[in-house]
C-alpha cells in the first residue's frame, strides 16, 4: 500500500514539476513553428518568476498573473523587433535576452528594490509582505468526484488553476496550430516564408504574433514556477529550466500534445531525484539522474537528423533564418 501511495505522489509531483516545462514549451513551439528560435526562454521565465514574487505580495495572484503576461508580451515583442524587423541573429539575441532576464530577475528579487516596488504598487501593504522571501502559493482546487479516481485524481484533479489552464491551453493550442487557417499560416511561415508571402500571408506580423504568445507563456511558466510550485524566492531559481523547455520542444517534435508527455517525463525525473535524495538513496545518483534530460535531448536531436525521421516529423525548415523580402 505504501508503495502505491509513493508512486501516486511521484506521479502527482511529475505533473506539478512538469507544468513549468509544459507552459514554456507551448510558447516555444509557436515561436519555432513560425521560424523563430527563442533562446531567451530562460530569461523570460526568471523575469516572470520575479514579477510574480513582487506583485503577489503587493496585490495578490490575479494582478501578478496580469503583470507577468504584460512583461512577457514586452519581452516577446522586443525579441521579435530585433530578430524579425532588424533581422539580427536569433541565437545572439536570445542569449542576450537570457542574460538580461537573469540580471533583471536578480535586481527585482533584491530585498531593497523589492520593498520599494511593492510599496509603490500598494502603499497600504502589510509590513510582513515587504520582507518575506516567499509568497502565497496558488490554492489547489479539487474537482468533486473526479478527484477520487485512483492515480489520475491526484495527478489531474487536485491541482491549482494554472495546471488546469496549462492542460486547456495544450488542447487549444494544438487545435489552432493544426486545425485553423491561422495555424496553417503560422506553420507555412516557418516552413517556407517566401511561399507564404507569395500566398498573401504577412510573414512579419505572423512571427510577431508567435513571439508575443511565446513571451507571454514563457513569463507565465516562470510565474507558475514561483506561485504554483516553489513559492520561495531563490536568485536564479529557474536553474536552466528554460533551456530544458527548448530541448523538450524537440523531444515533442513541435507538437503541443506530445509536449505534455515530454514535460511530465522531465517533471518526473526532477521529482524522483528529490525523493531519492530525501530517502538518502545513493548520494551519487542525483547528478547522473539530472543529466538525463540533457542527454536524451542530444540523442533525440541526433535521431532527428536522419533524413527519414526528419521527413516524417516535419522540422520547421526555415527555423532560425530571418526573412527578408529582397
Amino acid at each position, binding site marked *: 500500500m505504501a508503495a502505491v501511495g509513493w508512486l501516486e505522489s511521484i506521479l502527482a509531483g511529475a505533473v506539478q514539476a512538469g507544468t513549468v516545462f509544459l507552459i514554456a514549451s507551448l510558447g516555444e513551439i509557436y515561436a519555432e513553428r513560425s521560424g523563430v528560435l527563442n533562446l531567451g526562454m530562460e530569461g523570460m521565465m526568471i523575469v516572470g518568476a520575479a514579477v510574480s514574487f513582487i506583485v503577489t505580495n503587493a496585490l495578490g495572484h490575479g494582478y501578478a498573473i496580469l503583470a507577468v503576461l504584460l512583461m512577457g508580451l514586452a519581452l516577446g515583442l522586443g525579441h521579435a523587433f530585433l530578430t524579425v524587423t532588424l533581422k539580427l541573429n536569433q541565437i545572439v539575441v536570445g542569449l542576450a535576452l537570457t542574460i538580461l532576464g537573469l540580471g533583471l530577475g536578480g535586481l527585482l528579487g533584491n530585498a531593497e528594490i523589492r520593498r520599494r516596488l511593492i510599496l509603490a504598487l500598494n502603499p497600504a501593504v502589510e509590513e510582513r509582505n515587504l520582507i518575506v522571501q516567499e509568497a502565497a502559493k496558488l490554492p489547489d482546487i479539487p474537482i468533486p468526484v473526479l478527484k477520487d479516481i485512483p492515480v489520475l485524481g491526484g495527478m489531474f484533479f487536485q491541482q491549482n488553476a494554472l495546471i488546469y489552464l496549462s492542460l486547456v491551453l495544450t488542447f487549444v493550442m494544438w487545435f489552432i496550430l493544426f486545425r485553423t487557417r491561422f495555424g496553417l499560416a503560422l506553420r507555412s511561415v516557418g516552413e517556407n516564408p517566401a511561399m507564404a508571402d507569395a500566398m498573401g500571408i504577412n510573414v512579419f506580423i505572423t512571427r510577431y504574433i508567435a513571439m508575443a504568445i511565446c513571451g507571454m507563456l514563457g513569463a507565465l511558466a516562470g510565474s507558475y514556477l514561483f506561485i504554483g510550485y516553489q513559492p520561495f524566492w531563490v536568485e536564479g531559481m529557474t536553474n536552466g529550466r528554460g533551456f530544458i523547455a527548448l530541448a523538450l520542444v524537440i523531444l515533442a517534435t513541435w507538437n503541443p500534445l506530445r509536449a505534455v508527455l515530454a514535460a511530465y517525463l522531465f517533471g518526473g525525473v526532477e521529482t524522483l531525484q528529490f525523493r531519492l535524495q530525501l530517502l538518502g538513496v545513493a548520494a551519487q545518483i542525483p547528478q547522473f539522474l*539530472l543529466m538525463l534530460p540533457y542527454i536524451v535531448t542530444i540523442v533525440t536531436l541526433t535521431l532527428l537528423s536522419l533524413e527519414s525521421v526528419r521527413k516524417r516529423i516535419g522540422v520547421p525548415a526555415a527555423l532560425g533564418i530571418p526573412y527578408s523580402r529582397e
Partner: protein
Amino acid sequence: MLGTAVKIRVERRLELPRRTSAAISGLLILLSFVVASAVFELLGVNSVRTLSTIVSVFLSPTSLLQAVIRGMPIGLAALGLSLAFRMNFWNIGAEGQLYMGMFAATGVVLLHAYYGAIPEQLLFTTMILASFVSGGLYCTLPGYLKAKLGVNEILPTLMLNYVAILFVDFLVYGPWRDPKGFSFPLSITFPDYARMDGFLGNASYLGLTMALVVAAIVYVLMNWTTIGFEMRVVGQNVDAAKYGGINLLRTTLIGSFLAGGLAGVGGLIIVSGLIGRLRPRASPGYGYTAIIVAFLAGLNPWLIVPASIFFGGLLVAGEAIQAALNLPVAAVQVFQAIIFIMIIVAEFFKRYRVTIRR
C-alpha cells in the same frame, strides 16, 4: 505636426569604412551607459554611484589586476569561440568546456597528490595539456555530430554545459571531496607549484601572458595557415568548401577541438589562478560572458584580450557594488546584457543605412 509623414528608408550598405564602423560601435556602447542608467533609476538604484564604482575598478592597480585574472578565463574561452564562430560553428558550450578543463586540471593535481604521479616540475605543463585536451574533446562531440550527421550544434553544445556542471558536482560531492575537508564539497587545495601566483607573485601576470600568446597563435592560425583558411571558407560557404575539396569532417573536428581546448585552458585558470581548488559551480557563467566578449571584439583575437579584461572588471565591480551599495551582482549582469544588445544592434547599423525624411 502629427500629420507630417515621416519616411524611414533602410538601404543595404555597399561598403563600410573602418571609421564609420568604429563610430557606430562607440556610439552604441555610450548609449548602453545611458540605457543602463535609466533601468537602474527606474528601479530606484543610484545609477551614478553604480556606474562610477564600475569605472573606478579600472583606475586602481589592485583591482585592475583582479580584473585581469577574472577576465582571463573569459578571454581564453572567447579566443576559442572566435575560431568556432569564424567556422560558423555556434558553440554555446564554452561554459561546459571550461568545467571539463577544471576537471582535467584538478585530476592531474590529484594524481600527483594522491599517487605521486608526474614530477613537480612538469605538473603545471601537464595540467595545461590535460585541460586543453579535455575541453577540446568535449567540444568535438557536437562537432562530429554536426559534420557527420548534420545535427545543428546550438542545442547539443548548450545541453553539454549542464552535463559538465553536474559531472563536476558529482566529483566534488563524491570521490574527489577533500577527506580532511569537514565534508564540504571541495577538493584538496592545490600545492603552490600547481598555482599561478608563483609567477611574479600574482596570477594575473601569467594569465595575461597566456592569453596574449594564445591570441598570437589564433591570429597566425586563422590568417597564415591552411587549416585557418579552410575554417574560414567553411564558415563563409559550406558548399564552396565542399567543391573546393575541403574535408568538412576534418576541418570541423580540428576547429571544434581547438575552440573547446582553449576554453578548457580557461577552466585551468579558474582552478589554478582564481580558486586554488575545485568546487561546484566554480564558473559564474564565464562561458556565456565569453560569447559577449567575442562579439564585442568582432572576433578579432587582439581585441578579445582587452575586452575580456573589461568584462573581468565588471565582475570585480559587481562585488564592489554588492559591498558598497548592498546591491546584487545582478546589477552588473543587467549592464552586461545591455552592452550585448547594443553590440548586436550596432551590427544592424553596420549592415544597413537608415535615413529619415519628412
